[in-house]
Structures are given as structure tokens and as C-alpha cells.
């Protein structure tokens, strides 16, 4: 067992004693075998000196236990790294950003505190996965949907806090956007409830997210300002039906009017589903394909699709292919043929692209993504596509590193995410080449104004550095806030590039 940096053996031993008193001996992990379970399985530094490793782990089951652990850590300046379900794979998983931190494993805090069907919200703890929340709703026969991301085993809270998104209707796809109210344990063990949760008798914690006065919830997104122990989320009442279409255009630059029309329809809330934009391949293929889903009452979304079709058919040569209307709840037949996450049903099917396939019988196993935000216009998409094409060979050093891209993610209504995917294996040489390529993409893209919305743990400093307006004024402000509310800097040092004062000075 390694010591946390800067912590004496005596202080660490005393902290572990306090942790055991708080949560029970069984839930403090100090053996090498147990600590190894917290390694990031997709670490770009796997087995190398820079791999981020925990010194120990502690797993409270209640918010009172979280407070006790945080107070004990704060008293001896032991760094903590909270995780929820620990399944933030490709972004650091269950490993700390700062090696030597004690992982504060919140998986045991797995209570669905409330799902309110009439007001369409849920209040959950960090260890609740999308599977858990879906199972709770199903077992209680409630007529609301969750919005699953790709990994169903991920934490509802953790995914929202890390900036994750899902696959049903707007606005529910943006998981932080639809949260409503938090409970947070601060670095000194104090406990805060945000929004209406600060009003002791209010029954509206999950109904009004703003409360009164300066809104602070954003401080806890991609952050290290506190330990979130409860969070509310607005849910979508089950839509009556789902209707989709595929729009095909046949000239490359038709992507420009295609996006102008798509943006208009999404901003008018005519199209509310998770669209997809893909280039065509082959001699007679469309230049671009747009998948166009709508959720709502059957007769209403049929009319909305009529309106959308008329708009898209103003593009010369456009082909509009309408699919069969699907009603909910899904029949067994429909359930077997649809993509489940589009219907509020969590699964892990996306991991199939990482496993063995006929095309890839010896896969790398892991992956990471470079995910810059680019303008949501056809011109923006074409510029990024050409940028990738023009730089791909040089960035990869002339080798085929298995880098795939770009995939244009339209999950957010007002911007595009232009994803490039990198394979991660257990081979240090291959991973070294991937790391070099990744960092080149960060630099090259930043020069064009394209910056990531989210980053793997080991690259969070690189991306934070690129948000540099006015001599990194935003970063400096975040550091002032960090120093004020976590003066000993014990929580998630380095997460998203925010370091506490003693480590900045070091």
C-alpha cells in the first residue's frame, strides 16, 4: 500500500483508523489486491509510472458516513477521490486523477429515494445505476422514462456530473441540464442542499432548480468542489409513440442546408429525438444521411414529420424515407428490433464495438475519445472533416494507429461534438503513440477554436490549459473558489485541471 503524497505514515494510519470507525472494517480497502480493483481498465498509461493509482479505498453507505470520512481526511490532509459506480470508462474509470488519493467509493449508496410519476422526477444516490433506476421504475409500474447513456451500469449522478448525455428526447438527453437539486458534502464535512433544498420545509426540491440567490450547482459539474450525495432529475413521461425518418442528400455541400433545416426544426421543438448524421459510402450512396426521430402523441408527431418532410424536400434531390410508427410500451417484437436506449431501456450493447468481432478478432480492449465542440452548421462540419483528413496521417506519425473518426454527435441541440476515437490496450508502446497523437489533436484543434467538452483523466490538464482567454482567467477563478471551499485541497485534486493551492505551488 502506497502512502498519499505528503501524508506521513502515522497520519495515514490514523486516517484509516477513523475511516474504519466510520464505515466498518469491511469497507476500508488497503490490500494490494483490493486496491488493484480501482485501476482504470482503459488507462492510457496502463502499467507505466504515470498510471494513476489509489493508495486505498473507503466505501461509505450513508451521507453521515461520507461526512465522517471527509472530516477525518480533512483533519490529516489525506486526498480523497469520490467515484459513484466507478464505470466512467474512457474518462478515468474508478482511478483517481491524483495518484495516491484514497478512492471514496460511493457504490454502496445505491438508494432510489423517490420516483414521482405525477411530477416526473427522481431523487437518487450516487451508487444508483441506470439499470437500477430503470428496474425501480419497472418494478413500481411507473409511467416515466429514464434517458440512458451507452453504459447502463453507469451512475445516474456520475454521468450527469461528468457531462454525459443519452439517447431519447430533448431536453432529457443532457443529463446535467435536467438535474434539479443536489445534496453536497463539502471538504470540511459540512452538508449543503442546493435550490429549493435549502428551504427546510419546501416540498419542491425537485420541481424548481433555481431556488433563491446565486445558483451554485454548476460548481459541482466536472469538478472537485464537493462530494455530491443526492441529486434530483426530471424524467420524461412515457411518450405515446416514436416516428423516425431518414433524410438523404446527394451532394457533399448539401450538408449546409441540411443542418440549417435540422437546426430550425430542433430549435422549434418540431424534432426532439436524438438525430444522427452519417456520410454515405459507395458509388450510388447518398453524400449524407440524417436520422430523424420524434417522440410524442401519434397524431401530433405524424403532423410534425409532415412539416419536417416539406422543409427537407426543398433541398434538390433530397430523398425522405419515413419509417413505421412505433407505439409504446414496446411490443416484444418491437423490443427485439429497436435500439433500446432510444426507448429509455439501458443496456451495454455499445461495448460490442470494443470486443472481438469478425472484422476485429484481436481488439485493443479499451478506448478513449477526443470530443471537441464545433459549430452546429454544415460549414463547421465540413471544415472539421477536412481538418481531420488533412492532419490524420501526420498526427499518427504515418502509422495506422486504429484511430477512427470523425463521428458527428448531434446529442446537444445547439452544438456539435466531433468525436475521434482512439484504441487503448495494455501495450505501453502502442499507448504511447496514442497519447502523442491525442495531445497533437488537442493542440491542433484548439488553434481552430475547437475544444473538448470532456476529457480522459490523464488529459484533463491539457484541455483545461486550452481554455485560456485572458491569461486563463476562468481557471484562475475556479482555483480561487477551490481554495475557498476546500482549503486543504482534499477532494479530487486535479480533476478537470483544477488543482488545490499546495499542489499548484508544488
Amino acid at each position: 500500500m502506497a502512502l498519499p503524497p505528503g501524508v506521513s505514515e502515522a497520519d495515514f494510519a490514523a486516517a484509516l483508523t477513523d475511516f474504519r470507525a466510520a464505515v466498518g472494517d469491511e469497507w476500508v480497502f488497503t490490500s494490494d489486491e483490493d486496491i488493484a480493483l480501482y485501476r482504470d481498465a482503459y488507462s492510457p498509461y496502463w502499467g507505466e509510472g504515470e498510471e494513476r493509482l489509489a493508495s486505498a479505498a473507503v466505501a461509505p453507505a450513508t451521507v453521515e458516513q461520507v461526512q465522517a470520512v471527509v472530516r477525518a481526511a480533512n483533519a490529516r490532509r489525506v486526498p480523497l477521490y469520490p467515484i459513484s459506480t466507478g464505470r466512467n470508462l474512457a474518462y478515468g474509470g474508478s482511478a483517481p486523477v491524483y495518484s495516491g488519493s484514497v478512492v471514496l467509493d460511493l457504490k454502496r449508496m445505491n438508494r432510489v429515494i423517490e420516483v414521482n410519476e405525477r411530477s416526473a422526477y427522481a431523487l437518487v444516490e450516487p451508487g444508483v445505476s441506470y439499470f437500477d433506476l430503470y428496474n425501480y421504475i419497472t418494478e413500481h409500474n411507473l409511467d416515466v422514462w429514464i434517458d440512458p447513456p451507452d453504459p447502463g451500469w453507469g451512475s445516474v449522478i456520475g454521468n450527469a456530473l461528468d457531462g454525459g448525455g443519452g439517447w431519447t428526447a430533448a431536453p432529457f438527453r443532457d443529463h446535467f441540464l435536467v438535474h434539479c437539486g443536489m445534496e453536497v458534502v463539502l471538504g470540511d464535512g459540512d452538508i449543503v442542499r442546493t435550490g429549493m433544498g435549502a428551504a427546510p420545509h419546501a416540498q419542491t426540491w425537485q420541481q424548481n432548480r433555481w431556488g433563491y440567490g446565486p445558483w451554485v450547482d454548476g460548481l459541482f459539474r466536472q469538478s472537485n468542489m464537493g462530494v455530491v450525495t443526492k441529486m434530483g432529475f426530471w424524467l420524461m413521461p412515457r411518450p405515446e409513440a416514436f416516428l423516425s425518418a431518414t433524410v438523404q442528400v446527394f451532394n457533399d455541400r448539401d450538408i449546409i442546408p441540411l443542418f440549417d433545416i435540422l437546426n430550425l426544426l430542433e430549435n422549434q421543438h418540431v424534432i426532439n429525438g436524438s438525430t444522427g448524421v452519417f456520410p454515405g459510402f459507395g458509388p450510388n450512396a447518398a453524400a449524407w444521411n440524417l436520422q430523424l426521430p420524434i417522440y410524442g402523441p401519434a397524431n401530433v408527431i405524424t403532423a410534425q414529420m409532415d412539416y419536417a418532410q416539406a422543409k427537407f424536400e426543398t433541398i434538390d434531390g433530397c430523398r425522405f424515407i419515413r419509417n413505421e410508427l412505433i407505439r409504446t410500451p414496446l411490443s416484444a417484437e418491437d423490443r427485439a428490433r429497436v435500439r433500446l436506449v432510444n426507448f429509455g431501456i439501458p443496456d451495454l450493447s455499445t461495448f460490442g464495438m470494443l470486443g472481438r468481432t469478425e472484422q476485429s478478432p484481436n481488439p485493443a480492449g479499451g478506448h478513449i475519445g477526443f470530443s471537441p465542440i464545433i459549430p452546429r452548421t454544415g460549414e463547421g462540419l465540413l471544415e472539421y472533416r477536412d481538418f481531420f483528413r488533412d492532419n490524420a496521417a501526420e498526427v499518427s506519425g504515418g502509422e495506422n494507429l486504429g484511430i477512427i473518426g470523425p463521428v458527428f454527435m448531434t446529442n446537444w441541440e445547439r452544438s456539435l461534438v466531433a468525436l475521434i476515437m482512439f484504441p487503448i490496450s495494455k501495450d505501453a508502446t502502442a499507448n504511447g503513440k496514442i497519447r502523442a497523437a491525442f495531445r497533437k489533436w488537442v493542440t491542433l484543434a484548439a488553434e481552430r477554436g475547437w475544444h473538448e467538452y470532456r476529457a480522459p483523466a490523464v488529459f484533463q490538464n491539457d484541455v483545461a490549459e486550452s481554455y485560456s482567454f485572458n491569461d486563463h482567467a476562468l481557471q484562475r477563478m475556479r482555483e480561487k473558489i477551490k481554495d475557498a471551499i476546500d482549503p486543504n485541497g482534499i477532494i479530487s485534486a486535479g480533476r478537470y485541471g483544477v488543482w488545490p493551492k499546495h499542489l499548484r505551488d508544488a
Partner: protein
Amino acid sequence: MKARKSIIKPLMLLLALPLASTAADTHGDSTQGKAHFNYWCAPCHAAGPGHPGTQSLTVKYRGSVPAELEQRKDLTAALLTSAVRQGILSMPPFRKTEVSDAQLADLIAYLTTR
């Protein structure tokens, strides 16, 4: 960097042995094991499309053994312990806050007595 690599990789190889003996020495409940399988394993290892573990094992074994874990007759405590505690390819290890040693013993009882 090289020094660190040389320490960690042998360590990870050695881990399988003590963990395997821990799981094998513990008498599990196969009925509970079925429930744990449904919760933790089935999302990847159930039969049919959409299950990445089954898909991957289909390509790996090409019919020499069933791709679905519940159809296998050759699973051992050591193999299952290694898979759960060390992971394979894209499958990450499972922590004890997810699958405890007792629950792992249940899983082993379920998957090795079929």
C-alpha cells in the same frame, strides 16, 4: 517507467492465485448466484444479439464451446475469479463494493454446477 511496468505486471499475474483459492474455498449459493448473474453478468453475457460478451466469445471460440456463459460446462472457479477481479479486454474488473467475495462465490457455485 520500465521499472514500474516490471513490478506491476508480475503482480497482476500473481493475483489470480490467491483470489482463486479464496473463491474456491468459499461455499456459494447457486440460487443467489443466478440472481447475481442476472444483475451483473447478463447485460453482456446473456444469449442473443446486443450482448457484447456473448458476441466476443462467439468470435473467440467459434463454436468449440458455447458463447453463452450459462451454457458452459467447463468454467472453473479460477477462471471466473480471474475474469471478475482482473477483467478481460473491454470488461473491467469488478470491485468488492459491486461483487463481494461472497457474491463471487455464489456466482461460481451457479456457473460451475450446471
